[in-house]
C-alpha cells in the first residue's frame, strides 16, 4: 500500500493525461477510468488530486459510491492527524 502526501497526491489531478486520484477519510482512490471523473473533474465542482473528505458532506451522495473505485493507497497527513 502506497502512502501519499498531499503534495504527491496533487500531481494526480487527471489533467494532461495524468491519473486522477482522490482522497477521502485517509484512503486514496483511483478515479482515472471513471466516466464521472473525466479530465480530473467531477460534476463541475470537484477536482482530482485533493483530499475531498470535507467536500462529501455537501455532495448528493455518500462514501458508498467511492467504494466502487479502486483503492490505490493511503493519505499520510490525514492518518497523522488522526
Amino acid at each position, binding site marked *: 500500500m502506497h502512502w501519499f502526501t498531499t503534495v504527491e497526491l496533487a500531481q494526480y489531478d487527471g489533467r494532461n493525461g495524468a491519473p486522477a486520484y482522490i482522497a477521502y477519510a485517509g484512503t486514496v482512490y483511483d478515479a482515472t477510468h471513471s*466516466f*464521472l471523473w*473525466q479530465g480530473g473533474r467531477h*460534476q*463541475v*465542482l470537484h477536482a482530482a488530486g485533493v483530499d475531498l473528505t470535507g467536500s462529501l458532506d455537501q*455532495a*448528493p*451522495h455518500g462514501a458508498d459510491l467511492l467504494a466502487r473505485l479502486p483503492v490505490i493507497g493511503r493519505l499520510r497527513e490525514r492518518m497523522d492527524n488522526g
Partner: protein
Amino acid sequence: MARVAREMVERAGINVDTLLELLVKNASAELTTFYYYTILRVNLIGLEGEGIKEIAETARIEDRNHFEALVPRIYELGGQLPADMKEFHDVSACPPASLPKNPTDVKAMLTVLVEAERCAVRGYTQICNMTAGKDHRTYDLSLAILNEEIEHESWFSEFLGEGPSGHYLRRGETSPFVRKFLE
C-alpha cells in the same frame, strides 16, 4: 440571452457559468439516456422483459422531455449546447446506460436503468440545492425534473425487489411535473 434574468441569478450569489455547465451536463445526460433507453427498451423482450418495456418507454420519453425543458433555460442564462454530438455524449453528467452484455438478463437491465435514474436524482438534487432561494426559475424546473426522476427510480427499484414504490404507472400523458415547461 435574458440579460436581466441572468443578472438576477448572479446578484443572488450564484456562479452562473458553473450552473450553466451543470445544466448542460445534465441536459446531455437526458439526451444520451433517451438514446440508450431506446436500445434497452427494444431489448426488453420475453415474459420478464415485456413487463418492464412500457415503464422503460415512459422513462425514455420523460427523459427526452427533460432535455427539451432544460434547453430554453440554458439559453436564457447565456449558455449554449455543444455543437458536436460526440462532445455532448462525453460531457454527460451520467455514465452511458449501455446495454448489458446479456440483454436477456432482466435484472442486469433493471440495474442499468435504476443506476441511470439514481445518477439523475443526485444531479438535480445538487442543482436544487445550489439554486434554492436564489434562482427561482432554474429551481422550479430542476425540482419538476427531480420529481419525475425520483418516480423513475422508484419504479425500477420496485421491479428489482427493493420494496414498493408507492407509485402507479403513468395513466395517459407523460411528464406530469415537467409538462408546464413544455407548453
